[in-house]
């Protein structure tokens, strides 16, 4: 089961890394398009794409803003280019890291190489601004083992022409692309025939073993540093520029724009490679981002978002999800329960409906809501699903609690001349309070549990570390979410028990 989830997420992550400049995959759209938050929107919202480097840049932007005293939140790994771009234009995020080449090709849809200024001008009409390049160019590169390259005296791609015996392993994507192997070979008049298609990840292993001598890579890939490889210079500027920049909404507060602009020109390729390597080694993007600030400022001022800060954030969000949906369940569940307590066709219909809601497993409930116009991938959807899910215990217990009130007391209330509303509020509901509260407690606990699934649609909460832990195959991270979730359930349980003392009238507890 665990492996099942892990496999999936790992698979997604992989496919995202490989195609990160062009991928618009439906599942990712559905899954990781982060919440159009319906409440609390003060902080600057930073988005990132679903691969390591984008995460790290997002963290850097966040800490940069925080250090300027601007509150910022980072929605990690929301999806591919188009998702991020649409989110930025739609105002769901304010900032995200992008690459100039990607902007030209994917967003502005041009074949030409555009200058930074041309790009900036074109973006203005979308209400989007762009910083100067951050300092590194994450484009394609051909890489070799450093010692081999030195031994053979190969520094540029052109130098490969002198060594037709070298075995070249290329990813299929690179073999296929119109700016890939074929035109490159022509541009540099390379004689090589010794080409094999090989998976990107496997390629590094093959390179290390010596089964191949040259492979394609992204120029800031952490693996380059890890495997002591060297990227060959693209002396003819064959590969388009993929300079990293931050895109932001022009409506963003000026101090925030200023702070982001400050990052421009401070991150060269070597540094980015090191940050990426750190992120992949420690599985901690914040830590990697902190490296940037350490070297820049010369000292580590803060440790970024500490575990406790994250815990607080998850907890608040989890409470928000479970609490808000519970509130909805209560305020609709009790009236429905009152109706249901009268029995008859309406009562059966209400209980039937709530039952069917409980039957549709939480995942399916999310799946059914996501395609609907109002819902989509949002906190709204998560809360609605949780709300529907928590309905049954409240409805049913309200009904059974009311039906259990002795007839003599019901008649007393009627004979007194109380209006039906007063009877309900002052007599029936207090007398059924134990049963109703018991339903609410069940519902609360169910909601706390099911809310962990909300992270699947980017709604956050304890599900976030659980999913991210499954993704990184990191058990500690999983437990960082799972243990607090279980504790929260216990706390909810016990605090409701305390509430019993307040809400169940003393006369009923004698």
């Amino acid at each position, binding site marked *: 089961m665990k492996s099942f989830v892990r496999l999936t997420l790992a698979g997604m992550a992989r496919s995202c890394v490989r195609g990160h400049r062009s991928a618009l995959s439906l599942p990712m759209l559905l899954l990781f398009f982060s919440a159009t938050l319906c409440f609390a929107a003060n902080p600057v919202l930073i988005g990132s794409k679903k691969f390591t480097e984008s995460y790290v840049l997002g963290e850097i932007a966040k800490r940069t803003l925080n250090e300027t005293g601007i509150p910022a939140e980072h929605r990690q790994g929301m999806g591919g280019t188009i998702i991020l771009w649409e989110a930025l234009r739609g105002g769901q995020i304010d900032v995200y890291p992008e690459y100039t080449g990607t902007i030209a090709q994917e967003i502005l849809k041009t074949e030409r190489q555009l200058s930074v200024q041309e790009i900036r001008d074109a973006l203005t009409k979308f209400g989007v601004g762009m910083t100067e390049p951050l300092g590194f160019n994450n484009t394609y590169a051909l890489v070799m083992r450093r010692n081999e390259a030195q031994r053979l005296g190969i520094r540029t791609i052109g130098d490969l022409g002198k060594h037709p015996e070298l075995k070249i392993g290329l990813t299929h994507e690179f073999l296929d692309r119109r700016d890939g192997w074929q035109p490159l070979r022509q541009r540099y008049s390379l004689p090589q025939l010794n080409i094999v298609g090989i998976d990107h990840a496997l390629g590094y292993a093959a390179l290390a073993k010596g089964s191949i001598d040259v492979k394609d890579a992204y120029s800031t890939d952490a693996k380059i540093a890890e495997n002591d490889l060297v990227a060959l210079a693209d002396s003819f500027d064959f590969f388009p520029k993929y300079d990293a920049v931050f895109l932001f909404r022009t409506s963003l507060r000026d101090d925030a724009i200023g702070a982001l602009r400050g990052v421009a020109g401070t991150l060269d390729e070597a540094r980015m490679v090191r940050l990426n390597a750190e992120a992949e080694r420690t599985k901690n993007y914040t830590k990697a981002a902190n490296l940037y600030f350490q070297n820049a400022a010369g000292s580590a001022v803060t440790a970024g978002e500490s575990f406790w800060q994250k815990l607080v954030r998850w907890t608040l969000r989890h409470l928000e999800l479970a609490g808000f949906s519970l509130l909805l369940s209560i305020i609709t569940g009790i009236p429905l329960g009152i109706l249901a307590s009268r029995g008859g066709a309406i009562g059966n219909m209400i209980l039937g409906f709530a039952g069917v809601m409980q039957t549709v497993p939480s995942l399916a409930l999310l799946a059914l809501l996501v395609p609907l116009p109002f819902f989509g991938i949002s906190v709204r959807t998560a809360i609605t699903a949780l709300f529907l899910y928590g309905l049954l215990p409240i409805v049913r217990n309200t009904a059974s609690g009311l039906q259990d009130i002795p007839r*003599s*007391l019901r008649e007393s*209330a*009627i*004979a007194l*001349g*109380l209006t039906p509303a007063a009877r309900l509020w002052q007599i029936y509901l207090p007398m059924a309070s134990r049963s109703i509260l018991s339903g609410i407690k069940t519902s609360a606990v169910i909601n706390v549990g099911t809310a962990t699934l909300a992270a699947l649609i980017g709604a956050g909460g304890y599900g976030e570390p659980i999913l991210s832990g499954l993704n990184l195959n990191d058990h500690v991270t999983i437990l960082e979410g799972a243990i607090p979730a279980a504790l929260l359930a216990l706390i909810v349980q016990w605090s409701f028990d305390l509430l019993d003392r307040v809400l169940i*009238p003393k*006369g009923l507890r004698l």
Partner: protein
Amino acid sequence: MSALVQLLAVAKRYADAPALHPTDLSIERGKTTVLIGPSGCGKSTLLRVIIGLIPPDSGTIDFDASQITPVNIEMLRRRIGYVIQEGGLFPHLTARANILLMARHLGKSDEEMHARLLELCELTRFPENLLARYPLELSGGQRQRVSLMRALMLSPELLLLDEPLGALDPLVRASLQKDLKEIFARLCQTALLVTHDLAEAAYFGDDIVLMNEGRVVQQGSITDLRERPANPFVSEFINAQRSVALA
């Protein structure tokens, strides 16, 4: 003076047997009508029909010259005080809250309620310090007095009392009988009282109604019943109660 409540051919049957045969009865304004009869003869049923807890199968009931319908019953109930036989105190409310429930609902002022409450406690000899207790913390007789206070709280036009003094000791009972009778006379209170104590019936009853097996057997003063019994059952019933006078 006309009748405050007028029953015309009111009948009620439960699944297996009639509890009330078609019955005519009028409750005169300003008088105390006492309902007596063997256990299970339909006394409580009659009261429950009047206050609309169970709908009669047939017949009509007029209250203050207008017919009781499901529409107006809600408002009429506020003009009626009812002491249910089982007590019917709400367990989640203190004695005080039980008594004041309806007054609060109608938005009476605090002073007014407090004054009336003290008056009632004195009337029923109910210790004030017990007002904060929940029904489960009271003795049987104390509960019964709380029920009575609840019914009297709003000075209703009509009082329906279903064995309101059954669980009271002779001391409290005697003085309560005396006080109630005085108050009823002073206020021209209309009341329908069910009791098993013939002495009590005689003491209160301007008009005594003797029922048996769902029918009114005889209606009149205690002297009528004693000296001009409608049938042997009446004499038997009237003479049954053992007097405290010992051999």
